[in-house]
Every structure is written in structure tokens, then in C-alpha cells.
């Protein structure tokens, strides 16, 4: 027994540092959130702690901004991954061609994913402004289109957040597909061409199925980042107008750190965690199923 421990000890010591930081800074706070969401915690001491059951959750659903942020995040994480995929796949096909300037093209399309999303949000706020420095409205003005209040009308504000996010993320996701495209054997296409397949048929029956594993990775990343989206709407619209672009992560920070309603913020966190966990498990299941096939 003693010998066994002595043999195992070096291995345990190897895992210990990662285990400790991860446990203390991720798992313990997670469990605390789960527990404290059912109490009247004041944010400071654990004295006078009282179990209040589902009260915090009840308050949550009577709060309109909470409800709308939940709807916004659901809407965003349903639409944005589809949108980004629809643009990333054609872009990756274009970047995969044998053009002379393809390295330059790749660099240009990738570059918007380099700066912090927060900084890009502030930059785009100027571009979308209704004043005369607002580039987009100026451009539309050439065609006689009246200035659009991109960031002040709820539906356009949501559209703007998606558009800027698409601009910044599409190059990165095209790179994921690009890698997979390069691994498709050229013989497949040659054989298909001999058989007289059109270029659409070649895409539909060779390229698209071969992209499936890249697609799983890309869609998973898009889903997770859409659900956690914070920096971009924070800088671009600060969640407005009203609550039309306020996301779950934004409202948790707002209620928890600005309004200091800890109970509500933690109840929201619990819902957020369950939401993300369900989506990830579902995604993993689908991935496994596909691999088996």
C-alpha cells in the first residue's frame, strides 16, 4: 500500500497545480453560485444567510429586462452561427483557389479577429453614427437613401451587432474550413469531373460532406461565443436602445456589479449555466453520433 502511494505520488504532484487553480477559481465559485442563488446573500458575509428557495428566480421572471436579455441571447445564438457559417464556407472556397494574392487575401479577412471586440465596437460606433462622420450613412446618402439610425432603432441595433460580429469572425471561421478543404484528395474531384458532375454537384456531394468535422468545430465555437457575447454589444450599443441588445452576460454583470442585486444575478447565472451546459451536451451528442456514422 505504502509502495503504491510512493509510486503514484509523482503523477499526482504533476496534476496538482492545474487541479488547484482550476478548482479554486472555477469549480468552487460555480458551486457557490449554485448554492447562493437560493439564499438572500448580501455579497459580503455569510452571516445572517437565509435560505429563500426559488424567490430569486421568481423575481427574475417578473423582471422585464431579464426576460428580454434571455430572449436576445437565444435569438442571437440561433441566428448568428447560421449566418456566419453561410458566409464562412463560400469565403473558404474562394480563399482556397490558386490566386496569386491569396496570402494577402487570407491576411486581410483574418485581421478583424485580431483586435479586442471591445475596441472594434467603439470603432464601428463611429462608422454607424447618424452624424456626418458616420461612414455608412454617408455612403447610403450617395444613392439617395436617408440616414438610418443603426444603433438607435431596436431591430437595426441587433442587426448592427450581428453585422460587426460577422465582419470580425468570418475570416477566422473560414480558416477552420480552409484547413479541411486542403485535406480533400484531388482525385475525388477528378473522378467526379470525369463522370460529368457539375460544379454545384461537386460541392454538394464531395466538398460539403467532407467539411463536416470542421463544421462541428466551427459551429460549436460560434454557439459558445454567441451565448457568452459581451464586449461587442457593450461597446457598440451598451445594450440599447432600451434592452434590445442586452445579452445575458451583460445583464448578469449589470445586476450583480452595478445594481448589486446579488440574488438575482446569481439566479440568472444558474439559468445561464444550465442553458450552456444543455447546448454543449447536445452538441457533443450530435458530434459523437456523426463520428459513429
Amino acid at each position, binding site marked *: 500500500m505504502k509502495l503504491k502511494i510512493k509510486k503514484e505520488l*509523482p*503523477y499526482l504532484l*504533476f*496534476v496538482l497545480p*492545474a487541479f488547484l*487553480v482550476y478548482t*479554486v*477559481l*472555477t*469549480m468552487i*465559485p*460555480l458551486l*457557490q453560485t449554485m448554492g*447562493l442563488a437560493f439564499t438572500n446573500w448580501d455579497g*459580503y458575509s455569510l452571516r445572517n444567510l437565509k435560505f429563500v428557495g426559488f424567490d430569486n428566480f421568481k423575481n427574475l421572471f417578473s423582471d422585464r429586462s431579464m426576460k428580454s436579455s434571455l430572449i436576445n441571447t437565444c435569438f442571437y445564438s440561433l441566428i448568428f452561427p447560421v449566418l456566419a457559417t453561410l458566409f464562412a464556407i463560400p469565403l473558404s472556397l474562394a480563399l482556397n*483557389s*490558386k*490566386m*496569386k*494574392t491569396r496570402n494577402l*487575401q*487570407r491576411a486581410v*479577412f*483574418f*485581421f478583424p479577429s485580431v483586435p*479586442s471586440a*471591445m*475596441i472594434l465596437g467603439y*470603432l*464601428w460606433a*463611429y*462608422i454607424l453614427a447618424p452624424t*456626418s*462622420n458616420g*461612414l455608412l450613412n454617408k455612403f447610403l446618402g450617395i444613392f439617395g437613401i436617408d440616414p438610418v439610425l443603426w444603433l438607435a432603432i431596436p431591430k437595426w441595433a441587433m442587426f448592427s451587432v450581428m453585422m460587426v460580429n460577422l465582419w470580425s469572425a468570418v475570416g*477566422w471561421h473560414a*480558416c*477552420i474550413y*480552409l*484547413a479541411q478543404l486542403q*485535406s480533400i484528395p484531388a482525385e475525388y474531384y477528378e473522378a467526379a469531373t470525369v463522370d460529368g458532375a457539375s460544379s454545384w454537384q461537386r460541392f454538394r456531394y464531395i466538398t460539403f460532406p467532407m467539411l463536416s*468535422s*470542421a463544421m*462541428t*468545430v466551427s459551429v*460549436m465555437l460560434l454557439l459558445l461565443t454567441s451565448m*457568452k457575447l*459581451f*464586449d461587442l454589444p457593450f*461597446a457598440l450599443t451598451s445594450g440599447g436602445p432600451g434592452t434590445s441588445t442586452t445579452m445575458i452576460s451583460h445583464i*448578469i*454583470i449589470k445586476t450583480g*456589479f452595478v445594481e448589486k442585486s*446579488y440574488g438575482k444575478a*446569481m439566479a440568472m*447565472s444558474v439559468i445561464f*449555466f444550465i442553458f*450552456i*451546459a444543455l447546448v*454543449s451536451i447536445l452538441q457533443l451528442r450530435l458530434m459523437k453520433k456523426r463520428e459513429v456514422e
Partner: protein
Amino acid sequence: MQGKRRGIKSYIGEILMLGICAIFFIPFYYLIVNTFKEARAATISPMSLPIKSFTLDLYKKAFDTINFWSSFRNSLLITVISVTIIIVFGSMAAYVINRHKNKLTKFLFIYFLIGFMVPAQTTLIPLFNMMSIFKLQNSVLGMIVLYSSWCNFAIFMYQGFLGGVPRDLEEAARIDGAGLWKMFWHIVFPLLKSVTITIIIFDVMWIWNDFMMPYLFISSSSKFTLVMEVYKSVGEHASNWTVMLCTIVIVLVPITIFYLFMQKHIIAGITSGAIKG
């Protein structure tokens, strides 16, 4: 004949793609061009080149209002130290999980995987409380500690990569009587170079660009990171938007240099991640 026609077709395709590239790049053109114009000139013609009204004063103004060197130092310290910790802790843990399979390490792998499902926002409030108890709030050290807990991504990547690394060398070293520590750092770790570069790139970009953590955990401007300088400047330069654009350009310089140097590795890194994923 056919070859020629195809040549023209691909030529058109290339011009089309370059056109789309140009449109894609407009926001950055707009950003840079207007940093050399006074606010009024820029507002009148935001797309023109700064020929008539060229000025460098705005950069001076922007540079004077932000604490560039102090924030740059903080960003650099936080990023370099926390990424180093992530690499060291992550590779060691992944090695044991991959090579020393038993019930405990199998459990640990799933335990670390759960972290992917935990959005940072759900842990923030207890974390904030914990950081203030340990007096790590509003400190560079605190930020390093916070980011170090992002090691589960590294564990996941290393674990996947180790599956394809042959064990012969390790077994030979074992027979020669090398201990685990020495064997890992001298023999195994050098073999992990390519995945290490990928992890470094991802984590540097995440940590350097992160806004949420410094926004919540840093309050005094001497502890600001570069991204925080932009946030602070928005209020200060509300009336002088071209100075604000200068601040953005200044803040973007270091990460752009990083990108230019690592560009080849970045795209290759995303690629390798995708195929394994």
C-alpha cells in the same frame, strides 16, 4: 484556347476578391486616415486622405492622456506570466492524464472538460468576493491568478496532441532511471512544440484582448491594461473623436505586431485545432 479562357475567368475572380478585401478593410482605412485630421476636417470628409489638413498633434494628445507604458507593461506582465503558467500547469496535467490512465485520471479529464461549459459570468460574483478576501482585487497579480485558471483549454489541446506522440523515447529514459520531472521536461516537452505554439497564440490573443476581467477587477488606472485605456478614453474624448481613434490605433499596435510575426503559425494553429477537434 480553353486554358486562355480559364485564365481570364480566374483573373476576374481575383479582381473580385481583391475588391471584397478592399471593402473588408475600409473600417481600418477609416480608422487610420482620420487619426491625422482634426475632428472638424475628419467629420466633413471621413474618407479623404489627410493631405490638406495633415497633423500629428492628435497622436501627441492621445499619447499624453493615456498611460501607455504603464498599461503596456501591465498587459505584457499579465499575458506573459499567465500564459507561461497555463503552459506549464496544462502540459504537466495533460501528460499524466494521457500517459497514466487510471480511474482517477479519467475522472480528472472529464472534470477539466466541464470547465468549457462554465461561462466566466456564472462564477464572477463569488470570484469577486474571493479575490477581495485574498486582497487580490485591483492588482496585476490578481489578474495573473485569474487567467491561470483558464488552463483547461491547454489541457484539452495537449491531451489530444499527446495521443499522436510515440512513447519509445520515454520508455528508454525510464529504463535509464530518469525521474518523471526530468523525463517530462527534457524529452516529452520538446516534442510538444507545435501544439505549444498554438496554445500560446490562442491564449495570448484571449488574455491580451480580454475586457471583462480588468473591467470588473481593476479600479485604479495604474493597474490598467491597454484595452482598459480605450474604455477610459471613450468618456474623455467624447467631443474629440479623432483623438479617440488615435488611442485605438496606439492600443492596437502591439497586438498587430504580434499578429504579423505569428501570422503563419496562427493560421496553421487554427487548422490543426480544427482537424483534431
